[in-house]
């Protein structure tokens, strides 16, 4: 029997590290527009999030695509001694869930938990 459902792809930190910002944004949008839910082990940097929002807005069309639902935890501040000595701020992005706005809905989110509802179209 053919199982029906929604495809969910969990993308590893290693795979994400090997991609450019634009490759990540393009992959996310292409997959989400095909109805997939993506879970990124390591989230997007703030500038990548900006790019994703911009490109999402460009690709919104009235009857086909209304945008994305994206949820990630706030970035964590790194604790490396060298960074502290140099007064540098290192930010660590965290797990991120992205899906089509009409299929993924966040129910509740706090600092360490994201609860979401996924529905078939």
């Amino acid at each position, binding site marked *: 029997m053919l199982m029906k459902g929604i495809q969910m792809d969990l993308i590893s930190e290693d795979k994400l590290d090997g991609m450019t910002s634009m490759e990540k944004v393009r992959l996310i949008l292409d997959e989400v527009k095909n109805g997939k839910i993506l879970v990124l082990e390591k989230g997007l940097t703030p500038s990548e999030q900006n790019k994703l929002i911009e490109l999402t807005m460009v690709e919104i069309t009235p009857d086909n695509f209304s945008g994305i639902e994206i949820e990630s935890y706030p970035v964590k501040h790194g604790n490396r001694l060298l960074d502290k000595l*140099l007064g540098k701020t290192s930010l660590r992005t965290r797990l991120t869930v992205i899906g089509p706005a009409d299929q993924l809905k966040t129910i509740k989110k706090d600092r360490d938990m994201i609860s979401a509802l996924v529905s078939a179209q």
Partner: protein
Amino acid sequence: MGIMKRMKSKFSFLKKLFKKRRARIGIYGPPNAGKTTLANRIIRDWTGDAMGSVSKIPHETRRARRREGVTINSNGSSVTLDVIDTPGLATKIDFHDFMELGMNEEESKRRAKEATEGVIEAVKWLDDLDGVILVMDATEDPYTQVNVTVIGNMEARKLPLLIVANKIDLPESSPARIHGAFPQHPLVSISALEGQNIDLLYQEIADHFG
């Protein structure tokens, strides 16, 4: 504190002495958080003018509006700002939402299209700012992606950020929930509509962006 940071703070008086350009501050937040209501109050209080129209329908502000040279005086401190009221940030815009608020289909589609352009403009402005006032609706969940993204941007660029917990005139508001979510940033609880705690906000703005 890092060596560089310590050096920076030691020489901050020189920086202030030679600083000529006024700070460009963006008012950010999700749709309907009260950004334009706040911008109007600031501009009216310090220039006697207004910034833009306010509506209960989301994405009323679809173009960034800029007001230059707004001088705020508070407790002996003075700061002159260029204030940019930005369109509400969002990751989704569905024209059906506008239809539910009473607009016809054509109008809703036009508004949705303009809203997407407004979001792009708001994101682009982030590159050209010296600081951000992030307005959050204190009756809503603070962990929205818009808030996380704006805060992440400011932290990555080490630019000053002031969180405004708005709508405290509403009984269900909870500024404490916002503070609990983002304890690392200064927060002022206000009602932009009623003017509650607005002097406290001006004091924070003068201290923070001066």
